[in-house]
């Protein structure tokens, strides 16, 4: 299991491949991999977004994400989990979050990947501030899953 906060842009698929190679290389005991990537859009609530700043609570954020992952592993019997989340200043098109889950069968993989994302969005301490054309604003609330 691995959870990490990144201050620099990352390629989520390259990270997934590298993690799979290191944590699962040579094993053929998992049948399902489910992955989700959230990407920064250039448009939100009717406005063009030029850039975004993602703030987090160092220490609590990592601890909370590790708790989410541990719970998911126990509940769904997962083989491996990788969670990466960007913080700092970022541009449209850049990945914000990667959640990847490896398990024996597809039902657990789908359920766990989604459960981790929902918990992350509703409880992990991250906050987005968007730079619009002329001013900036805090995103007030995440949409329901």
């Amino acid at each position, binding site marked *: 299991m691995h959870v990490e906060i990144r201050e620099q842009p990352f390629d989520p698929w390259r990270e997934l491949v590298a993690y799979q190679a290191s944590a699962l290389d040579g094993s053929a005991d998992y049948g399902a991999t489910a992955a989700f990537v*959230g990407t920064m859009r250039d448009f939100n609530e009717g406005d063009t977004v030029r850039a975004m700043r*993602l*703030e*987090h*609570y160092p*220490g*609590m954020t990592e*601890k*909370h994400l590790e708790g989410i992952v541990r719970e998911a592993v126990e509940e769904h019997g997962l083989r491996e989990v990788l969670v990466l*989340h960007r913080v700092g200043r970022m541009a449209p098109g850049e990945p*914000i*979050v990667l959640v990847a889950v490896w398990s024996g069968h597809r039902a657990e993989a789908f359920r766990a990947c989604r459960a981790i*994302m929902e918990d*992350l*969005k*509703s*409880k*992990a*301490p*991250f*906050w*987005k*501030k968007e730079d619009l054309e002329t001013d900036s604003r*805090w*995103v*007030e*609330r*995440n949409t329901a899953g």
Partner: protein
Amino acid sequence: MTITVKFFASLRERVGIDERRIDAGGVSTAGEAWSAVAGAEPLAETVLIAVNHGYARADTPVRDGDEVAFFPPVTGG
């Protein structure tokens, strides 16, 4: 004999404080830690509270050495 109080995101901007250490004397709950730093500003229902990196409530006890944080609804992912 101190408690560390932190504010994040829009709440940090509104209160105008990032982090402050306060005397633990006379502060026995997270809500009292808010009042000790934010003064007359009421602790809104929507504000989330954490004590030592775990979610808590206004009546959660705090003591010397604890870290109490206040922040708006989270918007990660």
